[in-house]
C-alpha cells in the first residue's frame, strides 16, 4: 500500500480528481500507469501522435474523432486530469448513490454520456448534427463498401426519422429521444472502470 500511496501523492490534485470523477484510488493508479505508458517521452502530457501510436485505434473507423475528443478545442496536449475526466464518462453508473440536491450531475450520468457521444458526431460544435456531419460519420463507418447514393439515402432517412422540429438536423434532444430505448448505461460503460 505504501507504493500506491506514494504514486497517488505524485499526481497533483488527485483528491479533486477522485471526487469529480468518482474513480477509486486503484483506478486512478491504473489509469496513471496507462497514461505513462502512452506518454513515451515522459513529458507529462499526451499529444495526438501518442494516441495515434495505439494501432487498434488506427483501425477504428472513428478513431481520429475519439482522439480529437480528448483535446479541448485549440489545445494540442492533454494532461492526466483531462485524460481521466474524459474516461470518467465511461464509468458504469452508480445506481445506489444518494442523490444530493445541489451537487452537479456526475460525469458518468446517462445524460453526460449521451452528450459525449453527441459531441463526437457534432464536430463543428453548433449543437446540431447536420446532414453533412452525419454523412461523414456514415462514410467513415461504412467506407468503400457502399455507394454515395446509399449513404445519402441513409443519412436522409436518419435525419427524417429523428428530426422532430424539421430543421433538417438532429439536435441533442432529438438525439437523446431517438436513443431512449437503448440502454445507454449498459452500452456506454466499461466494466473495467467501475
Amino acid at each position: 500500500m505504501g507504493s500506491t500511496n506514494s504514486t497517488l501523492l505524485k499526481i497533483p490534485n488527485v483528491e479533486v480528481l477522485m471526487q469529480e470523477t468518482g474513480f477509486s484510488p486503484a483506478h486512478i493508479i491504473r489509469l496513471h500507469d496507462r497514461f505513462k505508458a502512452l506518454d513515451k517521452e515522459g513529458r507529462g502530457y499526451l499529444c495526438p501522435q501518442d494516441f495515434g501510436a495505439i494501432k487498434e485505434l488506427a483501425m477504428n473507423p472513428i478513431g481520429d474523432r475519439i482522439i480529437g475528443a480528448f483535446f479541448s478545442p485549440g489545445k494540442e496536449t492533454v494532461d492526466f486530469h483531462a485524460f481521466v475526466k474524459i474516461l470518467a464518462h465511461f464509468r458504469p453508473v452508480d445506481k445506489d448513490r444518494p442523490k444530493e440536491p445541489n451537487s452537479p450531475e456526475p460525469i458518468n450520468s446517462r445524460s453526460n454520456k449521451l452528450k459525449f457521444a453527441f459531441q463526437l458526431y457534432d464536430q463543428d460544435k453548433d449543437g446540431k448534427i447536420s446532414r453533412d456531419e452525419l454523412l461523414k460519420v456514415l462514410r467513415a463507418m461504412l467506407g468503400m463498401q457502399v455507394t454515395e447514393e446509399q449513404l445519402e439515402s441513409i443519412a436522409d432517412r436518419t435525419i427524417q426519422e429523428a428530426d422532430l422540429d424539421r430543421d433538417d438536423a438532429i439536435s441533442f434532444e432529438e438525439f437523446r429521444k431517438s436513443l431512449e430505448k437503448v440502454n445507454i448505461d449498459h452500452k456506454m460503460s466499461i466494466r473495467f472502470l467501475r
Partner: protein
Amino acid sequence: MELKMFILVVVLLVGSLMPLRGASSSLGTGTTHDNHGLQNHQNSSDTTPSKKPFPVLSFDYDHVRTPFEISLWVLLASLMKLGFHLIPSMSSIVPESCLLIVVGLLIGGLMKLVGENPPVLESNIFFLYLLPPIILDAGYFLPIRPFTENLGTILMFAVVGTLWNAFFVGGLLYGVCQLEGHRLGNVDLLSSLLFGSIISAVDPVAVLAVFEEIHINELLHILVFGESLLNDAVTVVLYHLFEEYTSVGTINVTDVFLGIVCFLVVSLGGIVVGAIYGILAAFTSRFTSHLRVIEPLFVFVYSYMAYLSAELFHLSGIMALIACGAVMRPYVEANISHKSHTTIKYFLKMWSSVSDTLIFIFLGVSTVAGPHEWNWIFVVSTVIFCLVARVLGVVGLTFMINKFRIVKLTSKDQFIIAYGGLRGAIAFSLVYLLNEVHFPMRNMFLTAIITVIFFTVFVQGMTIRPLVDLLAVKKKQETKRSINEEIHTQFLDHLLTGIEDICGHYGHHHWKDKLNRFNKKYVKKCLIAGERSKEPQLIAFYHKMEMKQAIELVESGGGSKLPSAMPSTISMQNIQPKKPPQDRALPQLSKAREEEIRKILRTNLQRTRQRLRSYNRHTLVVDPYEDGWNEILIKKKKMMELEKKISQMNNYLTVPAPPPDSPTIARARLASDPQAWGMKSVTESIPTIKVDLASPQSPESVNVVDELSKKGSQPKVSDEEEDGLTMKVPSPVKQRKDKKPDEEDDKEPQQRFMRCLSDPGPAAEEEDEDEPFLP
C-alpha cells in the same frame, strides 16, 4: 356454432381411433388381404377354399397401421390447438399447455374406458422425433445479441443453479426417505440424487409454451429460456453419472472428477459438433443458387444430423442443435432465397408447434396410462423441495451475479426467474428410461415427477400471467429498431472499442470487434455466395426498412390507381437488391391486386433485364446510363415537388397516388419510363463518352442533390420511396461530382457494381424476385 361442429369432428376422430385399434388387436397379426374385417363376415359361409368371389372391397388395417395412427394423433393435436383458439375466453386465462394436458387426460381416460391400453410417451419417440423440432426452432431464431450479452448470467443459472437444485432436492429427499423408513427405505442416496438431478432441470418446452404467451421483456425471457437450454449438459452428465453408479452403490472422488471432465466434454463437444454441422450447412448453401427448392431441406437435415451425431456420443444434443442453428443462420440467410427463408421459418414453426402439442397431449395420456405408485410423503416433499430449492438458488445466485453485472437484476426479475422454472416432458422421459431392475422405486419417481410437472405447468403456468401484470413487470417492446438506433449503436460500439483500446483494456468490445473483423475478412468470404459477403450489416438493415416501406406504399397506394401511378417506381424498385432476410412482413393484398402487381413487375423487369443485358463488362468503359440517370433525378425531383404540393393541399400524412390525369405527372412518368431512356442509352454506347459530359452536367446534378436535401417538410413515405430509388443505381457521376481526391479506388468498386448489374444471374426468369441484385 363452429365450436359445436368442431367438437363433433373431434369426437368422431377419437371415436374412430378406438374401434380401429380394437379391430387390429383382435385380428391378431393377420397378413393376407382376404381374411380381414368385413370380408371375413361375408365369406364365413363359403367353405370352399379354392375360389372366392373377387374381393371388390377389402379392409386391411395393419398395412397402414402405424402411419395411420401417427397421422390421426397429429391431426387430433392440430385440431385441439385450433379449437382452443376458437374459445378466446379460455385461452386468455389458461395457457395452452394446460388445456392440452387436460385433453390428453380425457383421451387417456376414454381409452381406458374402452379397454384399450393408452400409449405412453415413448422416450425414444420423444427424444428423437418430438424434441428436435422445438429446439431447432428455438436455436435458429435465438436472439444472439441479448444471449451473448447475458451469457455469463445464463451459464451461472444453468450450471450452478441446476447443480444446486439437484443436490438440494436429492439430498433432502434422501433424508426424508431415511426418516420415513417403511416403503421408502429402498431409496438410497444415489437414487435420490439421480431423481434430484432429473427433476431439477428447467424444461425448455414448458418454458417456451408458457413464456410465449406472456410477452415478457427480452432480458427475462432470454435468461430463463437460455438457462433451460444450457442446463441440458448438466442434466445429461448427472443422469449418466448417477445411473451408471447406482448399481455399484458408491461414488468416489475420481468419479466426481471424471464427472466434471465429462461435463466439459459433453457441453463443449456438443457445441463443437453443432458448429461443424452449421458451417457445413452454410457452406452448402453457398452453392444452392441453381436449385433453390431444396435449400430448406439442407437446413433441416444438417441440423438433425448434428443432433443425432451428438446423441451418438452421449454429448448434449440440445446444445449441438442450438449451436448449429445459431452458427449457420447468418450465412445461410445471406445465401438463400426469400422463398426458402419463408419455408424454413414456417416449417420450423409448424413442426415445433405440432411437436409441442403432441408432447403435452401424450403427457396427459401417459398420466392415465402409466403405472403409478402414490406416496403422499414423497410426492409432497418433492414438490416443496423443488420450489424451495429454486427460490433459494435464484436468490443466492443473483446476489453473486449482480456484483458482476452492469444492469442488475431486481427482485421482481428474480421472482419471475424463480417462478418461471417449469419442469416438463424431458424430466418425464428421463425417468421413464430408468431400468426397473436397478430402480425398483421407478414408479414412485414417475408419479412424483408427473405431480411436479402438473403443479408447475398448471399452477405456475396459469398464475404467471396475472402475476406479471400485478407486479408490473416490463413487457416486450413491440416496436422495431429505427435506423437511428441502428446507426448510433454501431457508432457507440466503435466508440467503446476505441476507448477500451485507449485504456489498454481487452474487454468485451475489443473481442467482439476482433471477432467481427475475423468474420468479415475470412469467414464471410468462404460461406456467403457472391457479392453478398461484402454487404455491411447496416446496409442490409436499411434495405430491409426501405423494402418494407415500399411494400406499404404499394399497399396504401390504392387499388385501381396502382398500375397507372406506379410503373416507374416499381420498375426501379426491382433493381433493388434482394429482399432482406429478416422480418419480411408482406401485407395481405387481394388476389386481383396481386395479379396486377405481378404483371407490372414482370413486364418492367423484362425491360430492366433487356437494358442490362445490352451491355457487358467488356464494352463498358463509362456508365452509359449516366445521362439517363440525371434525367431520372430531375424527373424525380419534379415528382416530389408535385407530391409535396398535393399533400399540402390534402393534408395527408402518407402520399396518395397522384391523380392519374395530372399532365405533369403523366409526362414525368412517361419520361422516366425506363424503357424509353434505356434504349436511347444503349444506342449511344459510345465508349469515348463523357468525362467532359460529366462536367457540364455536374452543376445540374449538384443542384439536384441540393434539392433532394431540402425535403424537410415532405411527407415521409414518398421520401423513402424516392430514396429507395436513388439508392440502387451506382453513379460514377456523383463520385466525380464530389471531386473526391481518392477517386481511383472508387473506379474499382464501380466496375464491380457494373459487373453485378450487367449480369442478371442464372435462371433469372423465374427467380426475378429472388435473385440478388447487388450493389
